[in-house]
């Protein structure tokens, strides 16, 4: 539109000699704005202190074009309105309105004409927006001057990423300018920022302290953002260069133990004294000092994150020696089950099982806890990005087809005064992680189909974020190999100082760290680069242009190349790695955890074709070295050797730690189950409880439909508001075979009894997938442990118990673990108190659905159908929602009957596979009353249930109220099942020998009644049940 535009400008940059103006500002307008509005009102003097740079600060305006885009005054601004509400929530009033502007800084290589074209053709919506432009080296027009034209007063807060933090929009603009030749031959650098213009309610301006607090608590996250209050001096320079690029040796051969510990601590290596001593011994034998690059490589490779030292080390469990807990429990179960459909377990980036017709599916779930505590948005986003790369990096690469997510956070209604110092409010954390998952997953075009949120006060200082990804791959792409001579190719994002020592940083005290450290430890994701990687990688895979692939995660290139070359050797020329900005040392390049990168092993004869494939997708791919047969890892920088390690020592040289564990004390106190005087009110309260209430506000922000594979969505029923048990997908368009994805977790049970909790959450994950039609004999599970500090014997003891529970349950249900992950240092220090998270095991299940047409949703379907309860109810209230409502502690945590539960699941599946089940919902938090309520309001159908015949285990009637037990117990392996009368006989035959009872029928009344004979226990309108379920925190 170039030729049509200029007549709409009030002026072009060239017409405004810089010296004549206090600021050079053009106003670009959409077509219909009257000329009078366009006047750059130089005559309007600033009337408030805000926005005129303080004379005390010797700051300079950025040497860049500044373009600020705002909605035109007559166009409403939802982002501004939301900001007013957000300020109010943190107690900042006195703001009449806020408007949001999007700011851009573009380097002066762009000429004035080109800048005007870029602004009008690329940065601006001509219908809705206007732009203010300031020339390089100039101060912008004072906000009040601009505002005065509209008869308003405004104060400005500017927010931009700290130096070196990923700015995806800026990257996109730089790339499009390069492609379009709008900038001529010049390479234009771009940064973006956000402008918040606040209009005070009162006559005077808002106080600076108020603006500072608004910036800190609402508009910016100090860790990744820089904010500017009453200050227009945005930065436009690169991060400062780091250490000189020479070989650095670290003198440790003669160091004593204290010195070794100091070296580890000061270098953020997180190596124990034993490990430092092992390294010292190695280098003494070698007769040399290690280089920094070598030491960093060892630290990364030996880190807890990469090596799982606790899980695979030696544990002294009250005198009992456990050699490799993981191998003894979780892996042992998989090995013993030896399922032929398990294709690849535990050794690749994800677990792989057979699916259908030459296709496999794979599944991986990652934890991303500490980054998410510091920066919820970036932490959760890069968590999603990381687990997607695991799926891209399994075998020769799988196509990501579904994401899952789970959050464990503090109470959303936590009073501000109870928030420990140094913590973000759980509300802000939850919103941030939801937005992070949303923006990454949605942009990748991967549906987020399953997950959960759990609230507990012990997560206030240390929230947990789990991100999962399911992939689909041709069966012949499951294996990979690396051959000496293959090129080492890094693809995707460029390398910056991002995420260096991310793992170690996150265990330090927060907020006391320097800007340099924090900006490198926390990252912002760039999903569109990862999408390009995906597009290019899968095409290169299908053309067999590489032999092996893995993702760059923790440890960056050092881990990826080190792992791939473990069996042969590798040499890397670090100066070939593409950088985001200059000034990185070789060691930094080597261990940077910059996102969106993967490493390939490429046969030399296919290298040119592979590079062309990536180029065609606009994705950078660079050969940085080759795999060798030397058994060594050699690192060079501009020809100079900066590190050389034996692969054997790197991978096998670490001493195995011995950790002490002690059996956790299980609280066996039992207050008994008190009667519930008003079970209707209790049912409503339970539906409203944070851990039960609707999470629709989260689900709706995720695209759960993209790729068009959905069969059962996260929300079910007549009004799409019933909480489904699991998602069902149809991955192949020509096959009706499907997959079900579900999960289970319960930190309240974990606090009561870790062993029982492990069994119970596995049971829950399996209940969920079986309830929708998954085949329990073709179900794989994943373990994700997040635990307190396992250097503490009682914490580690709880981990031992939970792992043993996992083994027992996996063997009983015949469901192998195929992948897992652990995060074992989750505690938060507040003053003198250290708070550990509850033992949290998040179990994911992936089940084959034989025929998606037989999938079952949880909503009641038809009046007149029978309602059955399946499974035995016991007096199990430890950690229950009922006890939480009553403020009771104690009680036995639910624990499945491992002899009976697998038969129950198989029986239910047989009934579903025969088409006998109309609706099915598992009984979990809140028990039978909650499940029945959810089925009823979701189906917009009433039900009349009578619990007289409910199968009950033995209980002490003197101490336990039978009705409360029937309604609110959280015993495992139970379902409510809707069956058409004509299918009832066959259904009952199918379940012969199991515990079940027909307890009532669906009806067309708009209420749920639960009785015991003539006694009415629960009687509630569907509308009241629905309202209660929708009555929780809504973001």
């Amino acid at each position, binding site marked *: *539109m170039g030729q*049509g*535009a200029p007549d*709409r400008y009030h002026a072009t940059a060239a017409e405004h000699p810089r010296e004549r103006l206090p600021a050079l500002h053009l106003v670009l307008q*959409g*077509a219909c704005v009257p000329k009078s509005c366009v006047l750059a009102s130089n005559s309007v003097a600033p009337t408030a202190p805000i926005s005129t740079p303080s004379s005390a600060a010797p700051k300079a305006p950025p040497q860049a074009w500044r373009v600020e885009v705002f909605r035109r005054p007559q*166009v409403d601004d*939802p*982002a501004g*309105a939301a900001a007013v509400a957000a300020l109010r929530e943190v107690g900042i009033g006195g703001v009449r309105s806020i408007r949001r502007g999007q700011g851009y800084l573009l380097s002066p290589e762009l000429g004035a004409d080109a800048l005007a074209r870029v602004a009008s*053709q*690329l940065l601006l*919506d*001509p*219908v*809705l927006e206007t732009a203010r432009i300031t020339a390089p080296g100039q101060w912008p027009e004072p906000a009040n001057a601009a505002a005065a034209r509209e008869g308003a007063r405004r104060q400005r807060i500017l927010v931009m990423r700290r130096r070196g933090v990923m700015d*995806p*929009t800026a990257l*996109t*603009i730089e790339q*499009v300018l390069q492609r*379009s030749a*709008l900038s001529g031959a010049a390479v234009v650098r771009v940064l973006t920022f956000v402008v918040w213009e606040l209009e005070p309610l009162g006559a005077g301006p808002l106080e600076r302290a108020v603006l500072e607090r608004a910036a800190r608590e609402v508009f910016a996250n100090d860790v990744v953002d820089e904010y500017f209050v009453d200050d227009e001096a945005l930065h436009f320079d690169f991060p400062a260069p780091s250490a000189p690029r020479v070989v650095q040796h670290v003198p440790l051969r003669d160091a004593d133990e204290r010195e070794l510990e100091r070296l580890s601590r000061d270098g953020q290596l997180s190596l124990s004294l034993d490990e430092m001593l092992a390294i010292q011994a190695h280098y003494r034998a070698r007769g040399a000092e290690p280089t920094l690059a070598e030491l960093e490589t060892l630290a990364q490779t030996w880190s807890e994150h990469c090596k799982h030292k606790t899980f695979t080390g030696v544990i002294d469990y009250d005198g009992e020696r456990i050699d490799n807990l993981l191998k003894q429990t979780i892996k042992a179960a998989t090995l013993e089950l030896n399922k032929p459909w398990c294709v690849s377990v535990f050794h690749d980036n994800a677990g792989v099982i057979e699916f259908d017709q030459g296709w496999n599916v794979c599944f991986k779930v990652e934890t991303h806890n500490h980054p998410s505590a510091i920066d919820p948005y970036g932490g959760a986003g890069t968590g999603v990005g990381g687990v997607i790369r695991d799926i891209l990096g399994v075998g020769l690469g799988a196509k990501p087809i579904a994401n899952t997510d789970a959050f464990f956070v503090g109470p959303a209604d936590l009073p501000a005064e109870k928030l420990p110092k140094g913590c973000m409010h759980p509300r802000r954390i939850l919103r941030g992680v939801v937005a992070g998952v949303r923006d990454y997953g*949605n*942009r*990748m*075009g991967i549906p987020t189909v399953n997950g959960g949120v759990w609230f507990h006060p012990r997560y206030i200082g240390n929230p947990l974020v789990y991100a999962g990804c399911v992939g689909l791959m041709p069966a012949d792409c499951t294996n990979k190999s690396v051959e000496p001579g293959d090129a080492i190719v890094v693809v995707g994002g460029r390398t910056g100082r991002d995420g260096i020592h991310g793992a170690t940083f996150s265990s330090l005290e927060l907020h006391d760290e320097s800007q340099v450290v924090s900006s490198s430890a926390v990252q912002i994701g*760039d*999903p*569109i680069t990862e*999408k*390009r990687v995906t*597009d290019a990688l899968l095409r290169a895979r299908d053309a067999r242009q590489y032999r092996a692939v893995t993702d760059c995660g923790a440890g960056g290139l050092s881990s990826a190349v080190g792992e791939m070359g473990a069996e042969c050797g590798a040499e890397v020329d670090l100066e070939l790695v593409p950088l985001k900005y200059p000034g990185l040392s070789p060691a930094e390049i080597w261990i940077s955890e910059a996102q969106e990168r993967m490493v390939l092993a490429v046969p030399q004869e296919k290298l040119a074709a592979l590079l062309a494939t990536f180029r065609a*997708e*606009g994705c950078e791919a660079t050969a940085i070295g080759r795999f060798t047969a030397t058994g060594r890892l050699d690192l060079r920088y501009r020809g100079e050797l900066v590190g050389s390690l034996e692969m054997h020592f790197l991978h096998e040289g670490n001493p195995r730690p011995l950790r002490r564990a002690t059996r956790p004390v299980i609280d066996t106190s039992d207050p008994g189950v008190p009667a519930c005087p008003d079970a209707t009110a209790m049912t409503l309260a339970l539906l409203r409880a944070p851990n039960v209430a609707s999470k629709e506000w989260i*689900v*709706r*922000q*995720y*695209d*759960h*439909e*993209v*790729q*068009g594979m959905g*069969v*059962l*969505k996260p*929300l*079910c*029923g*007549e009004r*799409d508001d019933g909480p489904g048990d699991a998602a069902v997908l*149809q991955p192949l368009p020509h096959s009706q075979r499907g997959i079900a994805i579900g999960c289970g977790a319960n930190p309240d049970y974990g606090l009561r009894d870790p062993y029982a909790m492990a069994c119970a959450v596995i049971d829950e994950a399996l209940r969920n997938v079986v309830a929708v039609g998954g085949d329990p004999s073709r179900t794989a599970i994943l373990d994700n442990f997040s635990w307190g500090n396992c250097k503490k014997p009682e914490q580690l003891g709880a981990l031992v118990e939970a792992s043993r529970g996992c083994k027992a349950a996996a063997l009983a249900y015949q469901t192998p673990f195929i992948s897992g992950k652990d995060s074992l240092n989750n505690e938060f220090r507040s003053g003198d108190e250290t708070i550990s998270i509850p033992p949290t095991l998040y179990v994911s299940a992936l089940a084959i659905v034989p025929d998606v*047409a037989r*999938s*079952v*949703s949880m*909503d009641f*379907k038809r009046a007149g159908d029978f309602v059955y309860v399946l499974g035995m109810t016991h007096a199990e209230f430890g950690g229950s929602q009922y006890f939480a409502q009553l403020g009771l502690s104690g009680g036995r945590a639910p624990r499945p009957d491992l002899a009976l539960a697998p038969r129950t699941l198989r029986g239910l599946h047989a009934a579903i596979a025969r088409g006998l089940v109309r609706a099915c919902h598992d009984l979990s938090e809140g028990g039978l009353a909650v499940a029945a309520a959810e089925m009823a309001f979701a189906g917009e159908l009433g039900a009349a249930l009578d619990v007289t015949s409910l199968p009950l285990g033995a209980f002490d009637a003197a101490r336990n109220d039978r009705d409360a037990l029937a309604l609110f117990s959280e015993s495992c392996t139970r379902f409510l099942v809707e069956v058409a009368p004509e299918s009832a006989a066959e259904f009952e035959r199918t379940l012969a020998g199991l515990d079940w009872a027909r307890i009532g029928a669906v009806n067309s009344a708009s209420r749920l009644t639960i009785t015991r004979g003539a006694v009415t226990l629960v009687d509630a309108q569907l509308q009241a049940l629905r309202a209660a379920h929708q009555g929780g925190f809504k973001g």
Partner: protein
Amino acid sequence: MTRALVLRAAGVNCERETLLALEQAGAVADLLHLQQVISAPSRLDEYSLLVFPGGFSYGDDIAAGRVLGFELRTFLGAALAGFVARGGYVLGVCNGFQVLVDTGLLEGVSARPSDRTIALTANVSGHYECRWVTLRNERSACRWLDAGVLWPTPVAHGEGRLMFKDEATLKRLEERGQIALRYVTREGASASYPELPNGSTAAIAGLCDPSGRVFGLMPHPERNVTPWHHPRWTRTAPRPNGEGLEFYRRLVAAAGAVNA
């Protein structure tokens, strides 16, 4: 036989379901990268239907559809205008609609992008939203759509609110029969949130150009094609396919008549 071209660029992510829907609707569909067409614009001549699928082209950076729209304006403006002038059909779904709006193609072939009067912008809710809605085919220049029909379709977007330069724009669009789809309640009554998921002006969900051959909509008909796509399929009698297939069948048939 209708030959359809599905165009992708970095961040486009609905190509799978779009290709499946087109093929099931009877088209022969190809998938090409934008660069492949930029380097040989004459490839457009092989097709009578051009589809911009959904996704987040270039991450929705700056604004949804802006960068891809900019590239089309810069590199393929004349080729696209020629394609439409020759009688070709163009469909933009979700992000593809945002791209179409940005190119100015929906304004009518003669309009310059700078004269744009139509915009898609952030939902009134302020965030991305995924849900099923009901659409009504309006009496419009799109004669291949059956006016009055109600059909369910999912939406999944953060910037789907149609806004216009002024009242006159809306009036002009109405007069020229460019308002092709509206959000309505399940019963067909006028919708408000959430049935109107984004606050779109006059509840408009889809627009066409004055010829009825350039068509853009925020909802995703290609995600309502199988018997099991609909969120309430478990509550109804078995169905052979989703209502979105009919949309593609009619579009493919209309585009097929171009070369006939």
